[in-house]
């Protein structure tokens, strides 16, 4: 008998679908391809066929299951509340289990990303050689023409010194008083390797508000790209390392500035547990995780009108892009808007379809870059319609993709994390 253990775990979710087809309206991939295998209903039907023994994990099947951004736009609008994200992750997990990861993913997930030190070493290596990639504008580089496979993609430059190499283990509140609370800072890969200055500024922001910050050097990659690709085993290993890294630090909260990281840490309990003990451990961990957007408003209770705009942004028009991992994975959408609307000195304009995925989808954009560009194109149309100077968001993953596509579309907008706008 074929092993379908991972699929069995999600069978109840796949049975929720009533085949109404409403998902088609919300699916960014379907909206480009207009075919049934692109959309949740089709994918779910095929997964059910595997469960019923009517379908195998063929290469076509792998492609169909792979072609999902996990943006959860369909799930959020599903009348039957089908948790299609769990069906897709479950199907990917089954495929990894039955067929392995394949050479490239195996190397990247298990040899590079799964270990903090090796990930740092490889990133450093890339940093040393990135001069080979021509610089486009500011700190953006694009792939040289000889890497044709990936197309002309713009990447933000890797930082000269990573955050891990400049951060202290503990930061005391700046007013010298007893800390209001003690939080752990989960840096996340993008902040570590690409936006370290921003990470330091966030620590500065927290300590100015009376918070003690600890940054354990045993923390690892959150594991999003890894477990969403179906490698639950490595995902669990990283989850356990991260849980351990913060376990004995006696922190009230664990905060991160990356929407993907915060949602990934929170959702270990959803996608990863293999037994009850793991489930409980991850559920405990989840309770402490806060995204920076909810942390500053809901926990620190800073009033939106008390934020101060940085001088350089005065007079600008800004718009907000909802990261999938914020708006749907964590239902955080009001907090950032409240800040942007209250900030004196800028004009806030809501973009059409602000909650539309930017098209990144982690490794989706590596395998389906053409689709990523088309989906991002719709996002760009929304941005253009606002006439904004700045696109604000709160996920470095989105930032990388938005920057790429703003340049591809020769648009003038700059992309910033919301916390970059405030003092």
């Amino acid at each position: 008998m074929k092993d379908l253990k991972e699929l069995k775990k999600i069978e109840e979710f796949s049975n929720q679908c009533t085949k109404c087809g409403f998902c088609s309206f919300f699916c960014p991939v379907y909206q480009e391809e207009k075919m049934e295998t692109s959309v949740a209903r089709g994918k779910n039907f095929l997964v059910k066929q595997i469960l019923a023994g009517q379908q195998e994990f063929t290469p076509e099947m792998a492609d169909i299951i792979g072609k999902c951004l996990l943006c959860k736009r369909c799930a959020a609008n599903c009348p039957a509340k089908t948790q299609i994200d769990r069906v897709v992750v479950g199907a990917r997990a089954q495929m990894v289990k039955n067929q392995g990861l394949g050479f490239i993913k195996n190397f990247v997930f298990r040899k590079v990303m799964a270990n903090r030190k090796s990930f740092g070493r490889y990133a450093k290596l890339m940093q040393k050689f990135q001069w080979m990639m021509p610089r486009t504008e500011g700190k953006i580089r694009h792939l040289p023409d000889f890497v044709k496979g990936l197309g002309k993609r713009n990447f933000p430059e890797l930082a000269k010194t990573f955050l891990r190499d400049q951060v202290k283990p503990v930061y005391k509140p700046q007013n010298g008083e007893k800390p209001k609370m003690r939080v752990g800072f989960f840096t996340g890969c993008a902040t570590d390797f690409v936006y370290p200055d921003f990470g330091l500024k966030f620590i500065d922001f927290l300590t100015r508000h009376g918070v003690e910050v600890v940054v354990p050097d045993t923390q690892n990659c959150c594991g999003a790209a890894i477990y969403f690709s179906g490698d639950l085993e490595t995902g669990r290993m990283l989850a356990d390392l991260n849980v351990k890294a913060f376990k004995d630090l006696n922190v009230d909260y664990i905060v991160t500035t990356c929407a993907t990281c915060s949602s990934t840490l929170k959702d270990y309990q959803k996608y990863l547990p293999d037994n009850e003990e793991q489930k409980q451990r991850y559920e405990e961990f989840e309770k402490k995780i806060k995204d920076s957007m909810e942390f500053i408003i809901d926990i620190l209770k800073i009033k939106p009108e008390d934020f101060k705009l940085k001088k350089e942004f005065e007079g600008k028009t800004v718009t907000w892009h909802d990261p999938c991992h914020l708006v749907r994975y964590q239902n955080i959408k009001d907090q950032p808007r409240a800040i942007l609307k209250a900030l004196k000195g800028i004009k806030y304009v809501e973009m059409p379809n602000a909650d539309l995925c930017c098209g990144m989808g982690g490794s989706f954009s590596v395998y389906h870059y053409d689709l990523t560009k088309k989906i991002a194109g719709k996002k760009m149309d929304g941005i253009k319609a606002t006439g904004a100077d700045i696109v604000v968001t709160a996920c470095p993953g989105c930032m990388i993709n938005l920057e790429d596509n703003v340049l591809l579309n020769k648009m003038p907008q700059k992309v910033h994390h919301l916390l970059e706008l405030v003092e």
Partner: protein
Amino acid sequence: MLKESLISELQKIVGKDNVLTAPEAMKAYSYDGTTSWIHEPDVVVFPTTTDEVSRIMKLANAEKVPVTPRGGGTNVSGGSVPWHGGIVMVMTRFNKIVKVDKENLTATVEPGVVLQDLTLRLMKDGLFFPPDPQSFLGATMGGIISENAGGPACVKYGVTKQYILGIEAVLPTGEVIHLGGRTLKNVVGYDLLHIFISAEGTLGVITSAELKLNPLPQARQTLCVVYDDVAVAGEGVFRVLENGVIPCKIEMVDNWVINRIEEMMPIGLPKDADACLFFEVDGIPEVVEKEAQKIAEITKKYGAKEARIAKDADDANKYWMARRAGFAAVFGKAKQVFAEDVTVPRGNIPKFVNRIKELAKKYDVEIVVLGHAGDGNLHPAALTDPANKDHYERALKAVDEIIESAVEFGGVLSGEHGIGLEKQKFMKKVTEPAVINMMKNIKALIDPNNIMNPGKIWE
């Protein structure tokens, strides 16, 4: 199986990217919005022009290969399931809104346009297409016309056929024809346009349509009216109308649905109420306010326990969200649901609702009512489980009797879903043989080789 040569001919017509043959894709085009009608095609093709459709039809007709046209596949009758295999012709990429004509209040659309996309586009010009099938997020115009779809707004605005001025269609033999036109009045010969509307894709492929539009109403108001007796709620429907208010929607939810809604998204509906009616009125702001008050008065006079007028748009939205959630709840709560589409004349709603209650008791099966009460299209749904044979058999018998009762009260077995495969056996029961024969002859005349969506409706 199809000949290899046919596949390559199709590829020549629409390009390789617009022809699917992988087994996985065939499975993904084997179903529609129903639970159990499933049959795989041999090939899936995506035309994007009338000429391509015509060339595909000529090819299929010459080879005598069945062709089943399909849009969003949201239909709930089995109508777009390729029952005899062959070609599924998917219109989702043939989807431009060609023209919006504000002066004439018309729009020209290709068949793959999704209704919600059309609605959003028309809104920019202050217009709307009134028929509102609740599958609007996925339903395409070709399918909406072919099924003559309707929705809650039928009470005031009617159904699709009242908003189609003309179509372009490709016949099974490949000829391109134009029926109707662009004018409101048109009596040139037989009204063949209306044979194509609601033909469920058995007579040809619609490739373009001229739609009649309305200006968007300036204001809307919603009421939730509470009843102790579902039959009295049924009476409330025609009392409101006979007293001079024509709401755009009157929807009914029964006690079972109310409780599911309150479990899923509590909005303060009274859990002990036997039924609620949701009304929506639209039009000029002052009139809308007056009409809402009048509905409250009339319903209370005729036995309603309470009439709540929505405080604002958010409050109103809550009720309509709940109404939609109620529909999902029905399908989520049972292994199998027989969602009937019977429709009775409005005056007979109370009698019909009482009959449904009796049948539920008689067969000991949960039958819930949540439907478009305003037009008598009640959607009684029997909840069952095929694994429980005895229960399943009883549910089937109850459904049979529901349909017979609807016909007995002067109604029809399908108001808006169509016959497709799902309602065939009932259609044969309640339709005069001479009428079936006429349909057969019309079909034979237009589709001599019986390749156009075979196996449906009267077959």
